């Protein structure tokens, strides 16, 4: 059964034991407040599902883009709007980190900046070959990456040279480059095959019969550095807002 979420920006369906969250439409799936809220509302439904034995979630997208990052056009350089998207993304990341089931990103198109972060919020990243880059674009668009992005990247790639390459050279990584660098689990020939492989992996994981609560909590331990940075970042922003309001 397909559930429409929010303004039809994403759908959540169940295929056998596995949930599939799809970012719908042919656009860039920019992470504006509406889309983030949509995704969060889907994740909330998953939090409410029975946790033992747990299921698995696959996130994928229609079209040429997995997600091209924050909706900068919507923000129009408004600090407040940028701040809002950033806060919401942090909440979304926290939702993924605490989700009581394994998560798999089936990256079938470009994933850049916050869009790459969205992919990295998943336990496994499977990706389509030949078209589509993972691209931490911030350096190229004159943005400084938040520390929690770095913390997430650190938890997902053990190699500091890779981290430096990704951030300091704004490298565009194809699926095969990303596999070699240990960021992506496996690369596949087409969007369909990527999703099929994700479903197979999901089913393998479900067969383990894990307790979702335990799974979510263990993941939170594993990614505690990220959660800490998210909290710190949140506090810093609050302080700045307080200072601004005093002036």
């Amino acid at each position, binding site marked *: 059964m397909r559930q429409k979420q929010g303004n039809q920006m994403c759908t959540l369906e169940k295929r056998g034991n596995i949930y599939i969250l799809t970012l719908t439409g042919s656009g860039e799936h920019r992470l504006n407040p509406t889309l983030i809220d949509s995704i969060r509302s889907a994740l909330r439904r998953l939090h409410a599902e029975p946790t033992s034995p747990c299921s698995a979630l696959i996130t994928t997208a229609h079209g040429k883009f997995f997600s091209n990052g924050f909706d900068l056009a919507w923000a129009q350089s408004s600090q407040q709007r940028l701040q809002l998207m950033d806060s919401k993304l942090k909440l979304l990341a926290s939702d993924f980190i605490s989700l009581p089931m394994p998560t798999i990103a089936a990256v079938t198109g470009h994933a850049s900046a916050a869009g790459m972060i969205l992919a990295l919020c998943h336990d496994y990243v499977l990706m389509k070959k030949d078209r589509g880059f993972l691209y931490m674009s911030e350096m190229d668009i004159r943005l400084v990456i938040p520390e929690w992005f770095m913390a997430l990247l650190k938890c997902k790639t053990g190699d500091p*040279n890779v981290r430096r390459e990704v951030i300091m050279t704004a490298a565009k990584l194809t699926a095969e480059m990303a596999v070699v660098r240990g960021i992506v689990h496996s690369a596949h020939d087409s969007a369909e095959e990527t999703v099929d492989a994700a479903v197979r992996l999901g089913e393998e994981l479900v067969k383990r019969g894990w307790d979702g609560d335990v799974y979510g909590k263990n993941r939170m331990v594993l990614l505690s550095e990220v959660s800490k940075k998210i909290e710190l970042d949140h506090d810093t922003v609050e302080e700045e807002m307080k200072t601004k309001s005093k002036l």
Partner: protein
Amino acid sequence: MCTLEKQGNLYILTLTGPGEHRLNPKLIDSIQSALRLLRDQPLYPSSALITTAHGKFFCNGYDLAWGQSASSAPITQSRFQLMSLKFRSLISDLISLPMPTIAAVTGHSSTAGFMLALGHDYVLMRKDRGFIYMSELDIGCDSCLVYGDVVLTAAKLTAEMAVERRIVHSAHESAQATVEAAVGLGNELVRRKWDGRVYANNRLVVLGEVLDKIGFDETVEGQNGDSTKSKL
């Protein structure tokens, strides 16, 4: 002790003279003075810095002779403390420099001299001559600056060994080839038209842990592009 010249869009900092370019206060001050000049350049689009050296040595570490030639043990101790403090300040300046940095290592480079090279974003090295040499000396805080958590247990690394261990970006046939490759890389990086301040701030995020160990106070320096100057 060092010269700073502009070559097209690139800056070249050269440790001059045929000696070992030992890191005594005078040389460190000289280098920091050059880096200060660079900070005053336009930040956008950013330039790039290449650091290289004349002669058989890139940099052979602290000036131990100067340290040990003091008239008493306490003065010796304070000389070493001074060199360590100034060196850490230099590394902070390098790490917060608002442009990509490349070390063209054209000769031997040991202990703190090697750390100086590692303080750059890219390390290119000559393969026909010259080693990286980490002695057993306790160099205090400097040992925390090893990029990539690589603990160097080999006493001597050739350029090729260093490339294999991914400590060094690439190895080249001669001193001249190394500098040429550095210039090529520098021009590539300048072509990206990055914002120097953003570049420095992203570098500070990536090297967050290193800064903690140097004693760099991020709340004083400002992460939001207010200042990229060293506290020390």
